[in-house]
Every structure is written in C-alpha cells, then in structure tokens.
C-alpha cells in the first residue's frame, strides 16, 4: 500500500506552490510601477545608448518627449505589448532594450543556455575520462594506500585539521 503523505507537509507544499505562483505571475499593476518597468525595457533614441529611464544625458533632446509619451500610454491603460508596439512603430525595433521572444530573436535568449548545457556535457565527459584514468605508476617499494585504509587516513586528517 502506498504511504499517505503527511498532511502538514502536503499543506506546506501547497502553500509554497501557491506563493511561488503568485510571485511568478504577479505583474506591476499601479501606473508608476508600470511606467518604471516599461521605461526600463526601452532605449533612449538620442544615440546615448542608455535605457530610457536611466538616460542621464544632460540636455537630451529625446528622453523627455519619450518619457511623456510613455506616461500618457500608461495613463490611458494601454497594455504592455501595445505600448511597445507603438514605440517600435514610431522609433524602429532598436527602441526595445532587448530582443523579443518571437521568431529569430528567440535564439538570442536560448543560445547562452545551450552553450552552458553543452559546456556541462563536455565537463561531465572530462570528469568521467579523468576518473577512469589509471593511477600514475609509483616508484619501486612504495605501495599505494587504497580502500578502508585510505578512508581511515582521510578521517584522521579531517579530525586533526578540522577541514
């Protein structure tokens, strides 16, 4: 018979899952938070190469106008994608601070993690091949210490050095 999970543990796991879901799916709802979030996803187009809300270009000819447009769009209650589309139509795709998650732009997001996974695979291969290597030959008269005796020496070293 399958053992029944502890109800307290089950309830705790349910609460944790709910909290994680709320955290994951909650978005900025008040206008100032939305303005800040969207303003950090857009670029200033004055060629300063800075995020719109972080443009510290003294006397910037564009950032004030763009911020006002963003503020107006947020005030109207436009959705995030509508605001971004409006900016892309007016200023071109380079106004978005990061590639989108559609079409070829997806590769921008995927490739670093593919590279990391491939690196992990190579590393596991190297570790396995290094573990399977034969032990280096010892000089005559020296017998290698292995098994329980080696573990005993290790334990002793750990106790004496506390490492």
């Amino acid at each position, binding site marked *: 018979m399958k053992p029944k999970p502890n109800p307290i543990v089950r309830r705790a796991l349910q609460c944790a899952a709910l909290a994680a879901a709320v955290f994951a799916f909650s978005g900025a709802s008040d206008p100032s938070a939305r303005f800040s979030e969207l303003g950090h996803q857009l670029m200033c187009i004055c060629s300063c190469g800075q995020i719109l809300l972080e443009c510290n270009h003294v006397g910037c000819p564009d950032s004030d106008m763009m911020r006002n447009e963003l503020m107006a769009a947020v005030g109207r209650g436009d959705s995030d994608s509508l605001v971004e589309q409006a900016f892309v139509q007016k200023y071109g795709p380079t106004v978005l601070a990061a590639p989108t998650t559609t079409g070829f732009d997806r590769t921008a997001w995927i*490739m*670093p993690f593919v590279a990391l996974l491939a690196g992990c695979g190579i590393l596991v291969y190297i570790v396995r091949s290094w*573990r399977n*290597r034969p032990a280096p030959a010892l000089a005559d008269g020296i017998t290698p210490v292995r098994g329980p005796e080696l573990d005993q020496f290790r334990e002793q070293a750990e106790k004496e050095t506390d*490492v």
Partner: protein
Amino acid sequence: MFASFWLAILGTFLTRSGIISSVHAFAQSSIGPWFAWFLAITFAVFVFFFALNHKHLRSEHKLEAIVSRESSFMFNNLLFCALCFTVLWGTWFPKISEWVQGNKVTVNAPFYNRVAIPVALLLIILTAIGPLLAWRKTSFESLRRNFKWPTVGAVIAAVFLMITPPSWGGAFGLRPWVDISYFYSLMAISLAVMVTLTIASEFYRGGRVISEKSGQGMFASMVQLTHRNTRRYGGYIVHFGVAVVLIGLAGSAFNQDKEQEMAYGDKMAIGPYTLVCRSYTSDEFPNYEAEWAVLDVYKDGRQIDQLTPERRFYKASQQTSTMPYIRSSLKEDLYVVYEGLNPDNGHPILKAHLNPLVMWIWLGVWIIIGGTILALVPNAPAPVVVPVPARRLEHAAPVPAGD
C-alpha cells in the same frame, strides 16, 4: 591564453572598425581590413602551435570525485566561459540579426540581467562552496558540517533584510516579490554573507588548529596561518573583496533620480535628503565660464552639508563640462548635477541621483588589491618538529610551506 588574447583583439576590432556602434568607434578609417587580417593571422598561428604541442598540453590529472575542489575549479571555469560567451553573443547578436532578419535589434541591460545574473549567482554559490571542499574528495558529512553555519547566516541575513522597513534606506526592506531586481539583490547580498562566513570559518578553523598546537592567541594564530600560505589566504581575502563589491552592486536596485528646476528657496526631496536652493550664480574665469548653484542638504530636519554643483564652458575648446557634487557615505551616494539654466526664467535645472551602497564597491576593490598584494608576499617557513639527534640540530634548516 590564446582565446583571451584573440577575444581581446576581437573586441577592439568590433568597436574601432565601426562594425558595432560604440562611443569608441570615433575613428572611421580603413583600419578595419588590416585588423581583420591581423585576427586571421593570429588565429592561424594559434591553431598551428596548438596542433604542434597538443600532446604536451594534455592534462595528466586523475579526478577522484565529482565533489572535490578540483571539480569546483572546473565548474567555476565553465561558468566564466558561459558568461564570456553571453557577452560575445550579446555583442554580436545585433549584427547577426541584421544579416538574418534584415533589421538590427538592441541587446542592452535587460538581456544581460536575465541571462547573466542567474549564471553569476551560481558563480557566487561556488565561491562560497569552493573553500569548503577538500582536494581530491570531500565527504557529504564534512560538507554538511562546514556548510551549516554559513547557510544559517545567509538565511538570517535574507530574512533580516526582508523584514526591515524600506525607510531605513540602503538595502533594507528588500521585498523580493515586489520586483525581480529586488530578488536578485537579496540573493546577491545573502550569498555575499555566505561567502564572507565561509572565509571567516576558514581563518577560524585554521587559526584554531595552530592555536591549539602552539598555545598562541587566536589572532596571532590566524596571522601566522596567513603568513604560512599567503597565496591561499590572500586569495580568500580577494574573495571577501568580491563579496563586498557584490553587496555594493546589489544596491543598484534602489537607485533613484529626480530632476527639478529650482529657484531661490525651492526644495527637492530625494530619499531621506531634502535639497534647498540657497543661491545660484555665474562668473567668468580666464579659461572658462561657470554657472553653479549652492544647495543646503538636510536630513531628518538637520542641515548636514552644502553642495555646489557646477557647469563650465571652456572657451578654447568650446566644450561644456559638468562638475557634479558627490556626498558619499557607506549607506549611499548623493550625486547632484547642474544641468543648465531654463532660458525662459533663468532658473537652474538640477538633477539628483541617490545611489545606495556605492562606497562598498570602492571598499571591495581596495580589499581585492590588499588580498592580491598579500598573495604576492613569500610564504613564511612552517615550524617543523622532527625528532633528530641533538648533534644534528645545528644543521637543521626550516622547510618552506607549500600550497
């Protein structure tokens, strides 16, 4: 080594040739093809020498266990390589997108924040775990025993930062559910605490062993421990410096700025500070014309400072330059810029930035420099007690310590 050199030259080529738009792409000239040929030739030379010497370059190491310091170094290098690839990929992607889709895209901070920060956090976890791993093989029991207190400390730090009120300023009141950047900041600070406690425990445990054997005080034992193996303990101090820098970087989630036109007596509130405009004026000097404002800084209703941000116009070069005024403390930097005069009413426009924990970045850099210098100091010879005949003692020489 080859890759580091080649990528450094590639970076210079990308910006100076104008392939990637950059502030460094100032010199539009025919240097691009020369650079490209240089890169091709150096690549060919690298491949040739690698092929020639690959037998000598082959490692002869044997790895005993996956949970060991050797493997932690390998994972550490893997994460650095992943970060390097992320930067290379992010730098090239606008160009690749132009070739494939026909239009450029921007790859800026939001991309790196989402892709590189998780990898960087893994790297910090390894920084904390690495010193706790023994060479060749580590038992899980030993890892659990050594990892317990740093983990408890990191959790306490995280909970403390979450429950404190945001009005305390700095990194207090970090609610990770409010914004993802707060979550990253909280993780970064907690992991920095974990790294710090790990390093402290390394010094403490090593010092205790020497103290028990020699009867010296704990501090003297830790100094002796460090002097016996300066590379190892200097390295730990460098790690501690990185943890301090990390705390400083985590403060960027709370950056604030405000721009305001200020007439006499006008006030600007930013964070815990209130700036009051006392006066503004202009003057002419032999080399430049200057405009500046005098601002009183109040905190908790008490004047604590007076700032004079300035803007200069240099006559010879016809260039304008701002002289911002910075008030630094361990908690935050108040940075005030004089932007210019409103032409309609002649009032100055001032911009104030409040950047928390910036001083920690500088402090961390100094600790890193100190640790590096310490690591360059030669090791002190370890006292060795060897039972030898009394008549041979006069010839006994000290044995230098190893790593």
